[in-house]
C-alpha cells in the first residue's frame, strides 16, 4: 500500500510507569478517529487481561492513526505504546528502533522519575527526536511550571516545546497532534533497496503462525514473498501482511517507512526473534537494522507442578508462552524435593510474576515457584568457570576458588526526607552509593551499585514502603563481581532440601539460617515423627530447631458399619497427599517452599 513517506510519523510513547502512556494513547486514538465512541474503553491498547487488571503495559502495542492536520493534509501516524516497567527495557529498546520520534511523557505532579531518565537515554541512543509532553495538568497537585523546568534542564529544549496535556480531559491533545506532525521527522525510506524490516515484537496466532510486528526500513514486503531472518537464518513465506487498527487490517504490502505486521506461518516465535531483521530471501540486505542483542534472563526460578501428573502440561504451557515471549527461557530440572520441573529464566520479578500468573490462570496449572535467584559464576580451583542458575547446584566450598555475582547500578529518585531510610535499607542490601544529585529543592536522585540478588527479592517493595510510595527506581546491569557468597542448605531430618537452598553473603548467613529455620518451623505441619530443621553451610550446621511429632489423628468411631464413608475419606486424603512434596520421610506443604520469601529482613 503506497503512502507518501513525508506524511508518515512513527513514534512511541515512553514514560515512567503510571505517568499516563496508555491513557494518552487512548486520547490520540480517539482524536484521530480510529475508534468509534462505542468501542472506547480505558487503556484500549492493553489487550491482555493481565494488562487491564494490573494497569501496566506488558507488551508493545502498535496502532495506526489517520490524522488530518491543520494544514489540511492527511497524515498516517504509527504509534507504539511501550511497556512501562524496568523488566521490559528490551522491548522498549526494540520499539524505539521502529520510530523516528518519542513522546517523553512526564507526570506534572510527580515530575521526572527514575524511568523517565532511563527511557530518555535509551531514546537518545536510538537518535530519536524527543517530544516532551507534560501530562496530568488537570491534577490539583500538578506543578506544571516546576516540572517543565525539570524537563528543560534535562533535555535542553526550549520551554515552549514542552506540550502541556491532560490525557484525562483531552486538554492539549490537539496541540500535541500538531506537534507530532511538526516535530517528529518523517521516515527516510529506501523503497528500492533490499528489504530490511526490524521485528519489534511478535505474537503467536494459532491460524497464521508467528506474527511479526515490524517496521519496514528499506524495501517492501508483500504477501507471498519469501523472507529470511538475518540473525536467525530462518526462511518463511509471508502469508499475510497488514497494519494495525485495534485489530489487524490486511493489505497487499507494507513499505519502507511503515509499521505493520507480517504473518509468517512459523510455528514458534523463536523462528522470528524480536530484534532480528527480516530481509528478502532472493535479494538479501547486507546489514541488519540492529545489532542483534538477545534478551537475557536475569532472574531464575524453578517452576514445579504441584501435581506431578501436570509436568507435561506445564511443559506445553511454557512452550506456548514462549511463542509470545522470547525472553522467557526454561530448561527441565529435577529436584529431590519437588520432582520434575523447569528452571525458568526471566527478565525480572514482574516478568516472573506475570508468567506464573498466566500459567495458573490461562493454563489452569498449580505451581510451586522457588525463590527467585540470579545467575552466579563460580570459578573452581582448577580455574574453570561454571554458571549456576540454581542455588542448589553451587559447587561445594572445597572446590570453589571464587564466586561472582551480577551487580546493577540502581538509581532512586526520592523526596529528600526518605533518603535516610532508603540508604539504611540499601546498605543492608550490600549497596554502595556512587552519586547523589538534587533534582530540585525537594527531590534527590541517589545512585548505587548493588548485587542484583539483593534487589530481586523485595527491594522494590521495601523502597516503596520506606518512601511511602514516593520513590521511583530503575536499574541496569553492570557486570559480574566477586563476592563472598555461601550456599545455605536446609536439612530436614538430616536430608538436604534442594529447593530451599539459598545463596547469601557470608556476613548475613547466620541470621539467614536462624530466620529460615524459625520460619520453617512455623510452616511445617507436625508429622508422625519429630522433624529436625537445620541450616548448614558446606556441611556445617549453623542453626537448628525441631518440630515435635504429631500424636493424634484417628477416627475414633467407625459407626454402624459405615465403612464406605471411611474408605472414601481415605481416598480423598490420598488425593490430597499426592500434592504434598516429600524429602525422606518428611512431607512438605507448598507454603514451606515460600519460607525463604517470608523471612523478614
Amino acid at each position, binding site marked *: 500500500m503506497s503512502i507518501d513517506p513525508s506524511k508518515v510519523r512513527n513514534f512511541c510513547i515512553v514514560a515512567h510507569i503510571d505517568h499516563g502512556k496508555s491513557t494518552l494513547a487512548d486520547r490520540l486514538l480517539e482524536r484521530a478517529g480510529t475508534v468509534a465512541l462505542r468501542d472506547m474503553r480505558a487503556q484500549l491498547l492493553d489487550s491482555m487481561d493481565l494488562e487491564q487488571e494490573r494497569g501496566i503495559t506488558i507488551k508493545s502495542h502498535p496502532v495506526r492513526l489517520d490524522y488530518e492536520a491543520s494544514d489540511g493534509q492527511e497524515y498516517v501516524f504509527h504509534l507504539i505504546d511501550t511497556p512501562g516497567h524496568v523488566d521490559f527495557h528490551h522491548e522498549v529498546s526494540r520499539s524505539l528502533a521502529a520510530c523516528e520520534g518519542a513522546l517523553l511523557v512526564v507526570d506534572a505532579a510527580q515530575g521526572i522519575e527514575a524511568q523517565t531518565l532511563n527511557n530518555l537515554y535509551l531514546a537518545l541512543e536510538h537518535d530519536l527526536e524527543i517530544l516532551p509532553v507534560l501530562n496530568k495538568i488537570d491534577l490539583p497537585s500538578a506543578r506544571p511550571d516546576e516540572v517543565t523546568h525539570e524537563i528543560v534542564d534535562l533535555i535542553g529544549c526550549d520551554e515552549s516545546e514542552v506540550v502541556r496535556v491532560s490525557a484525562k480531559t483531552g486538554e492539549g491533545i490537539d496541540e500535541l497532534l500538531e506537534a507530532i506532525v511538526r516535530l517528529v521527522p518523517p521516515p527516510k525510506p529506501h523503497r528500492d533497496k533490499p528489504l530490511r524490516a526490524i521485528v519489534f515484537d511478535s505474537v503467536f496466532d494459532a491460524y497464521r503462525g508467528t506474527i511479526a510486528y515490524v517496521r519496514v526500513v528499506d524495501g517492501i514486503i508483500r504477501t507471498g514473498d519469501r523472507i529470511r531472518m538475518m540473525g536467525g537464518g530462518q526462511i518463511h513465506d509471508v502469508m499475510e501482511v497488514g497494519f494495525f487498527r485495534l485489530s489487524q487490517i490486511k493489505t497487499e504490502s507494507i513499505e519502507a517507512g511503515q509499521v505493520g505486521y507480517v504473518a509468517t506461518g512459523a510455528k514458534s516465535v523463536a523462528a522470528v526473534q524480536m530484534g532480528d531483521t527480516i530481509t528478502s530471501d532472493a535479494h538479501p540486505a547486507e546489514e541488519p537494522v540492529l545489532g542483534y542483542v538477545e534478551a537475557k534472563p536475569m532472574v531464575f526460578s524453578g517452576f514445579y507442578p504441584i501435581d506431578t501428573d501436570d509436568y507435561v502440561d506445564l511443559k506445553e504451557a511454557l512452550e506456548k508462552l514462549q511463542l509470545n515471549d522470547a525472553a522467557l527461557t526454561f530448561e527441565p530440572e529435577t529436584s529431590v524435593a519437588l520432582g520434575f520441573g523447569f528452571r525458568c529464566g526471566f527478565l525480572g520479578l514482574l516478568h516472573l510474576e506475570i508468567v506464573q500468573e498466566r500459567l495458573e490462570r490461562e493454563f489452569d496449572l498449580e505451581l510451586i515457584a522457588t525463590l527467585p535467584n540470579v545467575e552466579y559464576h563460580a570459578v573452581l580451583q582448577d580455574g574453570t568457570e561454571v554458571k549456576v542458575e540454581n542455588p542448589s547446584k553451587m559447587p561445594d566450598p572445597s572446590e570453589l576458588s571464587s564466586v561472582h555475582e551480577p551487580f546493577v547500578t540502581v538509581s532512586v529518585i526520592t523526596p529528600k526526607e526518605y533518603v535516610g531510610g532508603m540508604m539504611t535499607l540499601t546498605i543492608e542490601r550490600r549497596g554502595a552509593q556512587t552519586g547523589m544529585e538534587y533534582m530540585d529543592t525537594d527531590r534527590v536522585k541517589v545512585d548505587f551499585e548493588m548485587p542484583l540478588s539483593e534487589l530481586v527479592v523485595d527491594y522494590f517493595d521495601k523502597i516503596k514502603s520506606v518512601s511511602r510510595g514516593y520513590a521511583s527506581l530503575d536499574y541496569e546491569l553492570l557486570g559480574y563481581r566477586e563476592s563472598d557468597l555461601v550456599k545455605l542448605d536446609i536439612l530436614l531430618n538430616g536430608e538436604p532440601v534442594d529447593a530451599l537452598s539459598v545463596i547469601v553473603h557470608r556476613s548475613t548467613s547466620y541470621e539467614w539460617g536462624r530466620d529460615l529455620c524459625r520460619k520453617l518451623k512455623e510452616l511445617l505441619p507436625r508429622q*508422625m*515423627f519429630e522433624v529436625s530443621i537445620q541450616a548448614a553451610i558446606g556441611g556445617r550446621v549453623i542453626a537448628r530447631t525441631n518440630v515435635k511429632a*504429631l*500424636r*493424634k*489423628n*484417628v*477416627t*475414633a*468411631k*467407625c*459407626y*454402624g*458399619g*459405615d*465403612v*464406605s464413608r*471411611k*474408605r472414601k475419606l*481415605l*481416598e480423598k*486424603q*490420598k488425593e490430597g*497427599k499426592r500434592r504434598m512434596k516429600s524429602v525422606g*520421610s518428611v512431607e512438605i506443604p507448598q507454603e514451606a517452599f515460600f519460607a525463604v520469601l517470608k523471612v523478614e529482613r
Partner: protein
Amino acid sequence: MVTSRDWSVYVHVPFCEVRCPYCHFACFVNQDPDFPLRYVRAVERELDFHSGRLDSARIVSLYFGGGTPTALSAPARKELCRWLGEELRPRFAPEAEFTLEANPESLDPRVLDDWLEAGLNRLSIGIQTMHPKVLEFLGRRSTPASNLRALDLACQRVDNVSADLIVASPLDDWTGLLRSIDAITSHPVSHISAYLLEIHADTRFGREVAQGLWQPSPNDQQADLYLRLVQELADRGFHAYELSNFAQPGRESRHNGRYWTRDPYLGLGPSAHSFDGAHRWWNHRDAHRWCESVEAGTLPVEGREHLDRRAVRRERILLGLRRDEGIPEAWVEDRSRLVDDYLRAGLLERVGPRLRATPEGWLLLDEVVLRLCD
C-alpha cells in the same frame, strides 16, 4: 451375590429425646405420635424384602442402635418386641448376641423387661462421663446419679453390660476420667467403649468451634488421656481389642467385631448400612423418606457400591489395623520401608506374621493407614 449362612442384623432407631450437640448420627426428635409405630411396621416389612437372603441364614448377632432405641413409644416398643420374639428369634443362631443401646435416663425396668422377653442379652449404656460439668457440656440429660441408677438396673437384669464413654472433651482431665472408670468398673460391667470426642462440622459443636467460641482439647492432651486410659483399663482387666473398645476376656462385642472382620450384615431402618461380602449399600438417611419407600414396596436404598479389589484391600487394612489382631504383614509387603519406619517409631508391632498398631499407633491410625494403603 455372596450367600452366607451367618448374618448380623443392625436396626437403626432414629428417635431421640433431644439432639446432643456433638451428634452427627441420623436421628431426630419426633413430634408425630403415630410415626414410631409406622416406623416399626416398616422395619418389619423391610426385613421381608430380604427374606430370600435370610431364609437359609442364621442370625448370629442383632444390634439395635440409634438414635435412642429405649426412647421408642410404648406401643411401638410392644409391637417391635412382639415381632422380634415371633419372627426374628426363630432365626437366631444358638448363643446369638442381641444388643440394645440405651440412654441412662430412658432406661426403665418395664422397658427393659419387654426387650428381655424378646431375647435381649446385651446392653450398651451411654454413660459418657460421671463428671456433672462434662455431662452438662455434652448436653446430656443424665446426671451422675441417673447414670449410676442405670448401671445398677442394667447389671441386675443383664449379664453382659457395656458402658460408653466420651473421652477428651475440653473439660475432661485424667482425674475426671478416672472417676468415670471407677464408677463403671465398680459395677459388673464387662465391656467399655471409649471414644475420643470428635467435632463434626455439621453439628452445634462444630459450629461453635468454627466461630471460635471454644477449642477442642489439644491433640497432645487427648493423646495423653487416651494412652493412660488404655493402660488403666488393661490394669483393670479390660483389654483393647479395638482402638476404642475394651472388654473382659470373651466379652468382646461380636456384632461390632463382624464389621471389622468384614462379615455380612443387614441394616434395617434409616441410614443403616449393609454388606454382603461384595457390595455395600445404605438406606435413605431421612426417616420419613426411608419409611415412605418401604411402604411403597421399594427398597429404601440410597446408594450402593461394588467393592473392587483395591477397595477390598483398603478396607481390610483400614479395618484390620483397628483391631488388636492387626493384619498379616504380607498385606503391606509393598510398603516395607514405611512399615520399618513405623515399627522403629513404635507405632506398629510385629506379632508373628502379623502387624498390629500399638496404642501410639492407634492414635495416629488415620495417618498410618493413609500411607500403608496403595
